[in-house]
């Protein structure tokens, strides 16, 4: 019998014991009968459980991946691409704080990868401020900051530390039923990385960057879906509207996928995908996408 089952049995036993003890307490109480109506949700034992695990999963690729591409292409580092750290004090609402935590996270990934240590430390301070305001000290704790400052000798180590901190924040927010905050952080990071790509493609006319922009269609769809899913107070209506407009432009990107059977090396637990993907992004469409990204990003970083 798997050990997991015995653990579950123990928990079930504890649960039954708890149930019995409380039942005894109830039976000892006075017989005052109250005719209060109880909300159906309270009686539904699944209602809170399914609230925690709604099983609607979304995935937004890490913004750091665009920075890796830029570094591989030996594109020069550009400080002007970054959101000014001075802006951090202007973000008052939770929405702005979450979006710009994502933006500064992407900026920190970019500066770290290009070994811009002094600049990275400045962005780290902005992240510290916003994460604290959002109640994310559990993820971005003192140990994280100390390790980043002292041990993060190279860009790759810094990226690893940062990715771990964002992952802890993501889990904490999901467990705390603050999925709207995690949706905004992911959106901010994704837009910032797309902003890097658009600006640097314009400057360098790189086919690789152009292609990477064209490959963001699925990610944009996920960004729109996750924001729509967690927009109970309608505070993201404007952002969603702009992203849907951007999505309309992305729909015009032509892509052709050709399947090919993958190869698997079971000994090394590795599968190699052999498919082909052609992406065509015309100049005028790229310009249109660039303008829309610029507008969305400006609205995000402006207080």
């Amino acid at each position, binding site marked *: 019998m798997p050990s997991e089952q015995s653990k579950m049995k123990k928990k079930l036993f504890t649960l039954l014991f708890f149930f019995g003890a409380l039942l005894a307490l109830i039976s000892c109480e006075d017989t005052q009968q109250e005719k209060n109506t109880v909300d159906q949700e309270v009686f539904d034992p699944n209602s809170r*459980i399914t609230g925690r695990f709604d099983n609607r999963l979304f995935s937004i690729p890490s913004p750091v991946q665009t920075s890796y591409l830029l570094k591989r292409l030996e594109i020069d580092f550009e400080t002007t691409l970054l959101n000014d750290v001075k802006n951090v004090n202007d973000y008052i609402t939770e929405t702005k704080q979450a979006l710009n935590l994502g933006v500064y996270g992407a900026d920190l990934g970019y500066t770290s990868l290009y070994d811009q240590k002094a600049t990275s430390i400045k962005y780290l301070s902005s992240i510290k401020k916003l994460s604290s305001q959002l109640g994310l000290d559990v993820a971005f704790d003192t140990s994280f900051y100390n390790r980043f400052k002292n041990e993060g000798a190279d860009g790759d180590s810094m990226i690893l530390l940062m990715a771990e901190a964002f992952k802890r924040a993501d889990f904490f927010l999901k467990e705390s039923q603050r999925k709207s905050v995690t949706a905004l952080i992911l959106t901010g990071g994704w837009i910032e990385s797309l902003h890097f790509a658009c600006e640097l493609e314009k400057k360098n006319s790189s086919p690789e960057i152009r292609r990477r922009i064209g490959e963001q269609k699925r990610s944009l769809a996920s960004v729109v879906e996750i924001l729509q899913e967690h927009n109970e107070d309608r505070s993201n209506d404007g952002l969603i509207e702009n992203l849907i407009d951007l999505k309309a432009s992305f729909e015009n990107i032509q892509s052709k996928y050709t399947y090919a059977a993958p190869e698997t090396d079971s000994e090394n637990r590795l599968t190699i995908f052999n498919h*082909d993907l052609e992406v065509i992004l015309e100049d005028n469409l790229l310009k249109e996408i660039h303008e829309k990204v610029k507008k969305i990003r400006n609205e995000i970083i402006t207080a």
Partner: protein
Amino acid sequence: MKSLIFFILILTSFFNDVLAQDCEQIVSNCESLLNKNTSGAKFVSDGQVYSAFLNREKAEFKTTFFGGSVYRIAASAGSDENYVIFTVKDVNGNILFSNRNYKNAPYWDFDIRETLEVAIETELDLDLKVTGCAVMLIGFKK
């Protein structure tokens, strides 16, 4: 009646906590799988934790694997490593990989030469575990 409501609230809260603790431990198990037996550079997490409470059902999400990277998918649903079955499909529904064919291996690497949009389906192996929290992590390296 008030006591009954109080009791139900405590009971559901207690049950919720049990599930949360389970899930937290499973995330920790999964983290150790993300860089198990790696050589050279470590896998960088995509910064997200994909968790679902599965009860004889599947959870699915879509993502993009960018060309020029190696990705790792790690999955866990408890202390034993083989509870989770994950399947990677392309946009046309072709099955590109399933760990079901490899004794439910808890992690697998994918060498991505050209960018690919995929759907990742997660389920519990019902012969081993019927219900519980399942966690998946995705990492990448150059």
